């Protein structure tokens, strides 16, 4: 029997599922215009924007679905551009 009794399942990890392939537009971060407010990291629904040692905010394209929320909310004009993905 393939089915598990009672429809029981072991827990999975979101990390196993690389959602970056779903993307049509990708956010391109322009570090020179960034004001380091951190809204992009805070609002990213995938939690895939992280900050590095140089205080640069960087999206993880393995998981970024290209929703554009970061670009929409970014208060610094031109700091995040949505660019069509080349596939």
């Amino acid at each position, binding site marked *: *029997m393939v*089915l598990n009794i009672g429809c029981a399942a072991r827990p999975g990890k979101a990390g196993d599922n690389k959602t970056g392939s779903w993307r049509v537009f990708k956010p391109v971060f322009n570090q020179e215009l960034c004001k380091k407010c951190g809204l992009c990291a805070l609002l990213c629904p995938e939690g895939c924007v992280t900050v590095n040692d140089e205080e640069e905010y960087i999206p993880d394209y393995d998981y970024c679905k290209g929703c554009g929320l970061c670009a929409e909310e970014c208060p610094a004009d031109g700091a995040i551009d949505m660019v069509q993905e080349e596939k």
Partner: protein
Amino acid sequence: MLKITEGSHAVAEAVKFCRPEVIAAYPITPQTHIVEALAEMVANCELDSEYICVESEFSALSACLGASAAGSRVYSATSSQGLALMFEVCFNVAGMRLPVVMSIANRSLGAPLSIWNDQQDSISLRDSGWMQVYAEDNQEATDLHFIAYKVAEDHDILLPAFVCFDGFILSHTYEPVDVPAQEEVDAYLPSFKPYQRLDAADPISMGMYATPDYYMEFRYEISRAMERAKEALKRAGREFDEEFGRDYSAPVEGYRLEDADTAIVALGSICGTVKDAIDEMRGSGRKVGLLKIRSFRPFPDKEILKALDDVSTVAVLDKNVSLGSGAGGALGLEVKDALYGSGIEVKDYITGLGGRDVRKRDIANITDLAESGKGDMYYGLREEVL
């Protein structure tokens, strides 16, 4: 040893001997005496069990679901509106294949409000995936709890079970009952070994969502488990007989059926009254017998056909009604299905709803009606108030 006791107290004692680790229930007439007695046993340290006081039946069965998923033997009891409030959880318990055992002190459903007996409550959950067994007397109500746990927890079955006994008519009646001793029950009913359980160290989720690619197969698996439960109930009944000398191995039980022309088919405590009525009718030369249905889920269709093979007329007594089906009760409709094509005349009689007393003479009247071809009707309506 026989002792005289109230039905609810005999059931509570039986449950105690089953050693449930978690009990969650909400009091409702006429189930109340069972859970009061169990709460007292826990408070007096006679029963080592977690008794969870909840604010509703929905929570009671939800707590049981969680506790059973965590690997405990659990127990609950309810009646009527209480069971109706558990509707959603009942399907979840069965779908997660959790072997919860619950006593149902059968009572009618409102509106209009009625605290009295019929079997509409448990019958209305016939499609939920719970096994349903019905007791004729308090001895059977007591004993069926041991059998229910044994079958429910069988890893080939893993289905929850209702042990149904008529509210007031059995639950509030004092009569002699032989409640086995703890050691005897321990010898019959092994401790609970969960098939799988929630464990933080080795986590799983139960009752996950199933897409259209899988849902039907999950339902089919429950149907198959129900089918296997037919044999498991017979086996557990036989083993019970070997241990205690009371035989519940048959899902249906005939009474004076051997040479009967007419058979009455019934469920629950009414069977006792029917037996006395049959003895009287036999005394005046009428060939009448009873087929008592012990297990309603799984439904013993083949056994019913076999038992009724030689009769010409069948009168089914239904203490429930499937509204909108004409005058059909669940038992009648399913007996007709089981006997379809056999040529046996089957008539259904809705009777004893909302505590309407059923007497021996009513059984004789119904037999007359069936033999004259009149049926599929409410029996005993008070035409003057209609």
